[in-house]
């Protein structure tokens, strides 16, 4: 009899652990401009190149950290991703989609995340995976992660090769450039997060501002502009 009870418990425990989670994909798509309908993502395999009557821009590098992914319902957090650190690299398609698995059923209307790496993680010591310094997103001469990196060229820049380089970081008050971004999403659907690079570049005077490589007021300002360039499908409609 005891053996039967044990067997029953064993089998039922397998059943409980096999209960289905919901998995959605959070995909990042960098676009130049979000027109009303379709969107042309920035492909960095060949230099992404855009032109309008005002400027012609080449984008060479677009990399940024997404961390602390959370789902919210009616203002309350209902799920947090464990070990939530992801390096999104526009030149590496594999990094553009993040699978998120959470228990079913779950009501949520907002998907929220950090653009960048929080202060605690910046000072805890070397980490691996996407946080490994060999991923090229950690300042070597001064401690700290680069939250957002955008490099390219524009004839408006009077720099060598007309290059602009924005390495946006800083985790220490008063130059903490970390931004929290919230997107309206549809429950249980894959989410696309658009980053409208053209909007960012339109608010920067590239003739004056084309090199930001340290923490500071300018880096914080750029980070705030980048935050306003994130949209979900629901936000666009």
């Amino acid at each position, binding site marked *: 009899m005891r053996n039967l009870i044990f067997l029953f418990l064993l089998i039922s425990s397998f059943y409980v652990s096999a209960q289905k989670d919901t998995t959605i994909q959070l995909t990042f798509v960098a676009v130049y401009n979000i027109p009303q309908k379709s969107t042309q993502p920035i492909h960095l395999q060949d230099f992404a190149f855009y032109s309008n009557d005002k400027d012609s821009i080449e984008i060479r590098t677009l990399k940024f950290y997404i961390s602390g992914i959370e789902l919210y319902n009616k203002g309350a957090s209902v799920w947090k991703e464990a070990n939530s650190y992801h390096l999104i690299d526009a030149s590496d398609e594999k990094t553009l989609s993040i699978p998120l698995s959470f228990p079913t059923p779950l009501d949520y209307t907002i998907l929220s995340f950090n653009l960048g790496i929080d202060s605690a993680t910046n000072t805890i*010591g*070397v980490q691996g995976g996407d946080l*490994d*310094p*060999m*991923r*090229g997103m950690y300042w*070597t*001469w001064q401690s700290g992660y680069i939250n957002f990196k955008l490099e390219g060229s524009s004839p408006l820049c009077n720099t060598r090769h007309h290059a602009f380089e924005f390495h946006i970081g800083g985790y220490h008050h008063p*130059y903490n450039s970390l931004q929290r971004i919230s997107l309206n999403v549809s429950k249980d659907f894959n989410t696309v997060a658009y980053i409208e690079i053209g909007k960012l570049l339109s608010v920067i005077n590239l003739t004056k501002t084309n090199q930001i490589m340290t923490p500071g007021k300018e880096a914080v300002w750029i980070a705030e502009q980048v935050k306003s360039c994130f949209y979900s499908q629901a936000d666009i409609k």
Partner: protein
Amino acid sequence: MKKLMVLLLVISIATSAYKVTDTIHFIVPKGWPQPEYDFTQNPLTTNKISLGTALFYDPIISRDSTIACATCHSNKTAFAQTDQSFSRGIDNKLGTRNAPALMNLAWNTSFMWDGAVKHLDMQALAPMSNPDEMDESIKHVVSKLQQSKRYPMLFFKAFGDSIITGEHTLKAMSQFMLTLVSYNAKYDSVLRREALFTQQENNGYRLFRANCASCHREPLFTNNQFENNGLPVDTSLHDNGRMRITQDSANYLQFKVPTLRNIQVSYPYMHDGRFVRLQQVLNHYTNGIVRSKTLSKQLQQRIVLSNCEKEEIIAFLATLTDKNYLNNLQFAYPKNILH
């Protein structure tokens, strides 16, 4: 069934015992504060320390494999470089700051003269990527190590993984640097009541405590703070110290208070190596201080010392030389690995 259980028990004890002998407990000298470094993130093991020792002495870390950490940080002189104010890096390029002595790093709250680096694990990245020092990226270092004959096996022994990463490379280097603990100078023996100061050294100790110890606090002989100690600005360098990192004018001309342990052997002194002899240092503190808005609070009052008193302080500072540390073969070139 019983026999199988016993066998499993013996095997599990045996394997766990093996693990235990590989780990190393970091010893905090008696009376010292707890270290700042979080060992739970990177527990010491003999294999990781060996690997870190090899990496410290191996010039493969530099772009053209000519410069190792040990090139500027020499174990015989407390890991300082004594024959030059600024070290020569790759392509014979000259740096702009003096290579500091290395010891007791587990207690540091920041690294570099201006505190640019906040964690020991990340410190090696700075000289590694500096174009005047090693001019190399961690990504490329990892790829060179992966392609080498010896390192994949060393990384496997240390981390259980022969695929080399930046994380493991830096953690191994940290482990070697964490073992560099200097706590056996004559001063330490005196405090443990195993030896006595001479009359001169004792006088020097009293003077030291009255005039110097507020910044050079025992037992580490640094308070880990940034101070402006009144050095006149070198107009060929215009090095404004910590302000370069914080962009805060309150940090103008502030540099990290270095330890005075092994100070006798780790000249030249100050962030730019401008003083070669301790006599010059003391003369600066009594006669050379330049007052400015950011001058250290500890130096607002004039320091008055006779020549005899200066000799006594210097005699005391000599008791901070730790011969065990300077001659420790565990910190020396690892012939068994880098043959």
